[in-house]
């Protein structure tokens, strides 16, 4: 046999050995993944308790998040309406109102302008408020006529809005001007506080998931210390020993993440019909939102990930201190 042939053959057998080791390694992982799941079912009560505690913690954070996301959805619709309502004086006739509206349409800062006469306002109010019959009993129409001005998008700063508002206020036909923006702003501030609260609560409950899983794994390690000692004595590395425990941690996070998703979905399913009724009462068409696919994915990834991190921390520390006697 030539030299190059021998080298080639040597390389081949070396590759075969690597492949063989790699296959054994994969098999090991697969075994760890499923045997750890099997072990969870061997102590059903303990596992169920841990998973339930984890799931409730996760559902609290996730539910709070989805609630804020729902309210955000409401205020999101309002965001577009930085429109101004110009309430006209009582003595302004419909023709004069129309004329003013035409003038305002020429205004460089206005995007759209809509005139609502006293009668139109009344009709709309009758239709939407549910006070139809009671309103018919009124002798005079108490509602003012209104011109709705939607400013151009360029007017984004507060200062510009203020200037425009002052300008409209000085028009002789106008009684007073109201900007919807003000309370949208307030709402948005409240929302940003709520979002930050969601963030903080998620961090706290995420830490809880990490520590609860870590502690559960510590107890499991203690239960199986005999096996750990023996494995160490026959030459197992810490990496090998910790693998099934890491998988246990992963399953705890994964299953409780999924359970949390079910809890969150269940909670929102329960409040869906009352919310719908409320929405109808306000003439809205509010659709309750659930966690989307990506949010579900993030939920599963983060709970599984946090559980693995918690387990890894505990194992790293404990395995160095568990020495065979």
């Amino acid at each position, binding site marked *: 046999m030539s030299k190059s042939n021998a080298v080639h053959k040597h390389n081949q057998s070396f590759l075969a050995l690597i492949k*063989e*080791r790699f*296959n*054994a*390694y994969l*098999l*090991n992982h697969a075994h760890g993944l499923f045997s750890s799941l099997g072990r969870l079912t061997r102590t059903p009560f303990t596992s169920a308790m841990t998973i339930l505690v984890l799931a409730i913690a996760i559902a609290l954070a996730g539910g709070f998040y989805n609630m804020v996301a729902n309210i955000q959805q409401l205020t999101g619709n309002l965001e577009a309406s930085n429109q101004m309502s110009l309430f006209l004086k009582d003595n302004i006739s419909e023709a004069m109102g129309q004329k003013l509206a035409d003038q305002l349409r020429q205004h460089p800062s206005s995007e759209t302008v809509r005139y609502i006469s006293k009668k139109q306002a009344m009709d709309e109010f009758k239709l939407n408020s549910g006070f139809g019959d009671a309103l018919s009993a009124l002798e005079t129409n108490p509602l003012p006529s209104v011109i709705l001005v939607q400013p151009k998008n360029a007017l984004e700063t507060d200062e510009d809005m203020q200037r425009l508002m002052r300008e409209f206020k000085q028009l002789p036909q106008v009684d007073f001007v109201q900007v919807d923006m003000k309370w949208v702003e307030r709402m948005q501030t409240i929302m940003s506080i709520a979002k930050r609260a969601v963030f903080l609560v998620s961090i706290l409950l995420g830490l809880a998931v990490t520590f609860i899983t870590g502690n559960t794994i510590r107890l499991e390690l203690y239960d199986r210390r*005999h*096996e750990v*000692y*023996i*494995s*160490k*004595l*026959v*030459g*197992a*590395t*810490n990496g*090998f020993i910790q693998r099934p425990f890491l998988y246990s941690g992963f399953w705890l996070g994964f299953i409780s993440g999924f359970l949390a998703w079910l809890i969150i979905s269940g909670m929102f399913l329960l409040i869906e019909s009352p919310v719908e009724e409320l929405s109808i009462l306000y003439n809205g068409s509010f659709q309750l939102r659930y966690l989307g696919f990506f949010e579900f994915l993030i939920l599963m990834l983060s709970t599984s990930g946090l559980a693995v991190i918690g387990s890894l921390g505990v194992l790293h520390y404990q395995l*160095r201190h568990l*020495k*065979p*006697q």
Partner: protein
Amino acid sequence: MLRFEHVSKRYPDTGEVLTEINFDLAKGEMAFLTGRSGAGKSTLLKLIAMMEQCNRGTIMLDGQNVSRVSEHKIPYLRRNLGLIFQDYKLLNDRTVFDNVALPLIVSGVNHQEISRRVRASLDKVGLLGKEKKYPVALSGGEQQRVGIARAIVSKPKLILADEPTGNLDPDLSNEIMLMFEEFKHAGTSLLIATHDIELVHRFAYRVLSLDKGHLIEA
């Protein structure tokens, strides 16, 4: 194969347990390690198995200094050792097959190879056909033979046995010793700690005797 040079071991609370231990164990050599309880037999074995570190001296195992070894190398060096215990140290929730396979699984041997070698090991200790049994279903002698099968499955160069016959009657002890002789003939070194004087006399091998931490060779 194994060499102790000026080895001493001291525990903070009990003082010096081993003092100036020197000896050599050749390849394929079998020796008894005797002494009263507390004479330091277990400590000596623990030093070889890297479960403890000595305070002074050097321990060479197959050319490797195991008295000064970093934590992450220990698992790999332990794979050269076969350990046998008085209380067998079997995993009771695993079958005989899985118990014997453990040293091969931890070192990443492939499936077919594991199956082949576990069977060969069980054949050597006369337990072929009991792979699927659990340790609790076996007698004491059989359990010890599972322990021995586990110790030899990775073809170690040195077998350390700590009171391997401590829980067995004389007939079974004899059987175990005959097995050890076979391993010796196959080129494995063995160090057997025991306080069974009768057994030591019956099998005339080298005797390393410990007395209050000092080694006396008979």
